[in-house]
Each structure stands twice: as C-alpha cells, then as structure tokens.
C-alpha cells in the first residue's frame, strides 16, 4: 500500500470516481464532475482561442503590422452579433454563408479524391493477384461485397429481382462488417478502462504493480 500524497493526483482520482459513479445512476457526485468538466472546458477553450487564434491571427496582424485585410474576417465575425438586433438579425447568415461555402467547397474535391478515386483504386483486381490464389479469392469476395453494398444503397428504384437479391447480400456484408467492427473495438475500449484502473489502483492507491 503506497497511497499518493500529491493533491492533484487526489483531485484527478476523485473526479475519475465521480464519473464512474454515473454507471450506477445519476447522482450528485456525477453532476458535480459533469458541471465542473463543462465549465473548465469552456474556460480552457476561451484561453486557447485567444492565445492561439485571436491574438496571433487577428490582433498582431491588425494592430502591430497594420495588415488591414484582417478586417474582413473581423467584420464577418462581428456580424454574428447582429442577432442581438431584431432588424439586423438576418445578417448572421452572411458569415454562415461564408463558412458553409468554404466547407462545401473544400469537401467536394477532397472527398472525391479520398473516398471515391482512392477507394476504387484499392478495390480493383490487379494482375498481381493472379500469383496468390488466396488473395485473389479474397479480392473477388471483396469486390462482390462492395457491389452488393452499393446496390443496397440505391434509392430511386424498387428493389426487386436480381437487385433485391444483391441488396440482401449487401445487408449480409454490412452486418458481418458491423459485427466485426464492434468486436474489434471492444479491445481498444477495455484498454482505455485498464488505463484508468491502473491510474486509480497504482498511481493513486498504490495497490498494484
């Protein structure tokens, strides 16, 4: 037995226990930890936003370097406050439109490249596979699974005949995939739990090695 004497270890340990107490049910300890968690994280975000973004990206260029172009995002940002005025509240859509346009524009080519072109490349059968029967069979099954799954996601057509059978196969692949993915993740989550238990039992209480 080798209990930690560090005050911060104690604080961390107690907060850890408070969160775990939620497994039993909602209770004052959990409520306390939850509310502290939210408050501290927002306060932290404020500090980070100021030191990492607002100060170096806006204040310094604007006031120390006289870089007036930064007035544009500042102006767009200030438009958020238009919601406080009834007549001007529509203006909040201007920065929202700006941000949405940005997000959509970035998404189109990036997603096309990563999720379509690269995935097609990874799914194709190549002559190299002919050298290894097991890999060839796996790739053919894979390709079949991909085709069936895609067919399952057809929306504008009634699923009947061959396409219905294919879509059913698609569901089979989906379910096997989801099951595997679930089973696979259990391990990672248990590792996280073990990390917390090690902290409590070893670093805090000194009960285990």
């Amino acid at each position, binding site marked *: 037995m080798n209990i930690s004497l560090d005050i911060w270890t104690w604080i961390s340990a107690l907060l850890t226990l408070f969160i775990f107490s939620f497994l039993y*049910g*909602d209770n004052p300890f959990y*409520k306390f930890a939850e509310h502290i*968690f939210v408050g501290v994280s927002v306060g932290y975000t404020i500090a980070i936003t100021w030191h990492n973004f607002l100060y170096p990206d806006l204040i310094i260029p604007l006031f120390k370097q006289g870089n007036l172009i930064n007035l544009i995002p500042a102006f767009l940002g200030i438009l958020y406050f238009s919601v406080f005025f009834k007549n001007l509240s529509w203006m909040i859509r201007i920065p*929202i439109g700006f*941000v949405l346009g940005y997000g959509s524009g970035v998404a189109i080519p990036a997603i096309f490249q990563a999720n379509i072109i690269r995935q097609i490349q990874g799914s*194709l059968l190549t002559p190299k596979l*002919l050298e290894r029967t097991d890999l060839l069979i796996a790739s053919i099954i894979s390709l079949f699974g991909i085709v069936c799954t895609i067919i399952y*996601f057809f929306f504008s057509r009634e699923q009947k005949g061959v396409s219905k059978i294919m879509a059913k196969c698609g569901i089979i692949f989906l379910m096997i995939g989801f099951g595997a*993915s679930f089973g696979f993740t259990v391990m990672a989550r248990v590792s996280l739990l073990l990390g917390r238990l090690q902290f409590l039992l070893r670093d805090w209480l000194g009960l285990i090695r």
Partner: protein
Amino acid sequence: MRKKFLFFNLLIFSLIFSLEIKVLDTPNDAGNSLTILITKPMDVDYYQIYRKEEGKDFILIGKLTREERCFIDDKVVRNKTYSYQVIGIKDTLKFSSNIGYGIPKAQFFNTARINVLVGIIVFSFLILYFIKKARKGEKLFIRRISGLDAVEEAVGRATEMGKPILFVPGIGSVADIATIAALNILGEVAKKAAQYDTTLLVPNRDVLVYTVAYEVVKEAYSNVGRPDAFKEGNIFYITDSQFAYTAAVDGIMVREKPATNFFLGTFYAESLILAETGAATGAIQIAGTDMVPQLPFFIVACDYTLIGEELYAASAYLSREPLLLGSLKGQDYGKLIILFILLISSLLLLLSNFPTFSIFSKIIEFFNVS
C-alpha cells in the same frame, strides 16, 4: 568559384560526360523544387549532387545511391536560375557530369488531379440534369427509408407523453457535410415539433453549428406560423470538448428524460455513450451518421439507424421536395457508374496479364492520387 570548377574538370579522365544529367522543373508544384534526373548513369558507388545559385559557388546538397536516378531539390526559390552538377564517386575516383540548368516554376493547374476534375464534372452534370428533370415536374420514385418513417411517429410520441425531444447534431463542424444534412433534418423535425407544440432541445458542441442550428429552428417555427413558441434557450451551446459535451448530454438525458432522441451528424467515440444512456432512459432513438466505425454502435443501441448515405437522402425524403429527390436520382446514377468502373476496370486489368492486352495495365494509373 573558378578554382572549384577547374577542380571538377580535372577529375574527368577518359570519360568525358559519360555521366549525363537533366534538370527539370518538378511538375504540379508551387515552384519550390527542381528534379535532377541522371539520364546516363555510371557504375559508381554513389552520386553527389551539387547546386549553384547565380553568383555563388557550387555546394553539396545531397547524395544518391548507385541505384537511384532522381533527386528532388526542394530548397530552391521560384523563378531563379540554378545550375547542377552530379559527381559519381567510385573508391577514390570522381566522375563529373555535364552541368544542367533549371528554373523552378509554379503551375496553375495540377495535372495529376485531372481524374478528380473529370469525376466532379461528370457527377455534377448528373445531379444537375436530374434536378432539372424534377423541376419540369417529372415524377420520381424513392424507396422507403425505415428510420425516416419513424420521425413523425417519434415526434408524436413525445407530444403524447408530454416530454421533450432531444436533437443532437453530432460533434462535427459545419465543414462536415453530415452536420449540414443533420441540420436539414433538424429543420423538418423542428417544424413538426412547432406544430405539435413539443419542446425541442438542441445541445451543440460547435459554436458555428450552434449558430446555424439556432437559425434553422427559429425559421422552422416561423415557417409554420408559430414564431411565438420558439424558445431561445432550448437551442444552446455546451462546450467544444468532446467528452465534456458527452457528459453534459448524458446528464440532460437522465434528468429531462426526453421521449425521443435524435443522434444525427458526425459522431466519434461518444456515439455509444450517448446511445446507451438514451436506451437506458427508455427513449425512442433515431440515429444516423456517415462515420462508418460508429455505425455498429448506433445499430445495436438505437431503434432506427440511418446508414451512411441514408442520412443524406433523409432531407430529400422528409421534405419530398422534387428538386432534392432529383439529386438522389443523380446520386444513384453516380453509384451505377462506380459499379461499372469497378467491374470493367477489374476485368481489363486481369486481362492485361496476357501480353496482347498489356495496354490495359495503364488503367490503374488513372486512379492514382496526389
């Protein structure tokens, strides 16, 4: 400088320029690199690469092994002229190459990304074509999506029980298009909630999403003629921190006991924490995300789950707006094209194993990404 030059030239014994190089502007870059190619190699141990800026001496900038032929110098400045010389080293002997010149230039168009451009153009055309068709009033069929049929029922149930509806728009930003899809569904849910006069709670993790969600709900209320019923405090921001947000939403679920939970948008590890807590409170749960790793958890813990693309189809389905249905049809044709590309390219690639069809092996190159 002159001295060094002489030194180099003295090294050439019998083989005058039997080592040859070529300097090229590296294609598809911002003009910050040059490519030095050894076009005529020699039997040496390794190569040394020398670079000279205008008005300065040659300096050693790198080495290549005897097998390597290509050196990319990314320490150059755009639009300046550089000269290069490669020295082949074998034991104590040195062999020098010709001097190659190059000017790094920036390109306006990345030709290596032409595949993406072609794809986007074809696909955009498909979408717009079917939207236009829908605009002309053509009837378009959409198959049932079970999770979405449940939306009305879920809102109704909350009304009957006199309990609130919880709508979690995920933890993504507005740049995650899944969030936008979720906000579109939020608009439809908000309209129904306004009509039934049911409380709608929308906790947010991202401030920008919060501002959009706020607008969407407010507009939905005024669109169905109930602007008075809109309560500002019900659409709120909690925190940016993933798990603090999760902890708080868990708290809301166990304390306010909503009758219906919607989890739509981008989700990470919190998916199951939220869905399990919601399941324990006995709420009807409708989830939907395009984050593939999280789908299994929603499927096991929620009543209905919109899988991937179904989330995007949802806003079209719910609103029955012909324009949006048109785009769904376009998406289907997009998938059809992908299917054909997968099958035909695979076939041709396998055929390329035979010498007669070896030309088809080039197909794979079209799908290179850079």
